[in-house]
């Protein structure tokens, strides 16, 4: 699984981190600037949960 965070769409809701703190790390100001990454297999469900929590739809899950 690949996670793609669109940093330009991120408005700092931090709901990704609220839903999945193990997967989505925030900057000090509360923005997600993780870019593209592959979560560990045990974190895949959490990655999806965090992506689903983003009001900006800034996080895309690519199943591969």
């Amino acid at each position: 699984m690949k996670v793609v965070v669109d940093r330009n769409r991120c408005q700092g809701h931090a709901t990704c981190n609220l839903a999945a703190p193990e997967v989505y790390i925030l900057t000090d100001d509360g923005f997600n600037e993780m870019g593209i990454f592959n979560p560990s297999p045990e974190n895949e469900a959490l990655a999806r949960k965090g992506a689903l929590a983003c009001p900006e739809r800034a996080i895309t899950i690519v199943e591969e």
Partner: protein
Amino acid sequence: MSYGPTETAEVMQPPAHVPRELVIDFDFYDVPDAATDPHLGWKKLHEGPPIVFTPRNGGHWILTRGAHQFAAMQDYSIFSSNPFNIPARPRGTPRTVPLEVDPPDLQHYRSLAIPMLSPKVIAALEPHLRASVIDHIEALKPAGGCEFVSEFAVPMPVDLFLRFVELPLEDRGRMREWVHTVSCDPSPEARAAAHAATHKYLSDVLEERRKNPGADLFSRIAAAENDGLIDARDAASMGLNILFGGIETTTSLLSIMMRFLAGSPAHRRELAEDPSLAKDAVEEFLRRFGILNLGRTLTTDIEFYGTQMKKGDRVLLPIHLYGLDEANFENPMTVDFHREHFRHIAFGTGPHRCLGSHLARPELRIFLEEWIRRIPDFSIAPGETPVGRSGSALAFNYLPLVWPG
């Protein structure tokens, strides 16, 4: 941020470009059944066309569907936030900052507040938040009842705000009075006077902070003013935006949450049996009981989802309807703490995302945790009727509660 009902008896003629079949008579300050349930009359709009026009309040569109609201809020160059209020604030009055500032200037103002309201900073304040919430609940509990709006929903956020911006708690009496008046008073003169008094108070605070800066948010704004980054008018306006944006919204949601819980023993029991549910309960309350009606102004002619709109048209975004849209949530009128997701736009979407969202969530969660722990059973006082309202924000103005001693 609050704006009262219009006294305009005249109803304008819809402009020529508005199709007759999209015109409805809808005064968003006086929505049917709002006194009983502020969301009911709004939800009925989902039985009609997605985009409608009302000749009330100067005439404006209403985007009733979540997808359209989302699109409009993302497309800020077409849907400008200036002016915001419907009806528009009188010409010559200062713009609300940063509410009425569009990108790219918007970021300039938001950057003053963002570092101080980050999740990390708020997390460090959490013990103080909890202590303050507990104090308020413990003070009320022995009475066995209260009028929740004036005795809790206004005072608690006011006190939190005063602590957060390092203002004297002795000012709480005046500030509670101003906030309660601006939110709930039926008289437009009273509301205007309270608003002006708050403005004067904050201008004096900024003046003081310019001379004696501290580490708080208003000192940061005052420092920016000293450095010529923001002018005096905008600085005072920003103070007002932060105050009302931070307090009145919390007050409104607290009142609606508690009106609901007073009538639902099942939900109260869920929270009492599993206090860890409070986090998701807050999200579900934000989703089900969104409170805001936002204004926009078109900067250009546009065909928006098949509807012709013209430059200058006012557009109302009732973003609480996003959470009540069947396209977004199954059984949206049901409160369910166990939904798969609660992806709402109660804090907005796009560049105006609520700056206070990281403070609001813990504030509401801690409130639920500590209230239910101490007062798990409560109901509407016998013989009494809660009174709700619609307007720029939905809320209950009057909520008399009782609980076992």
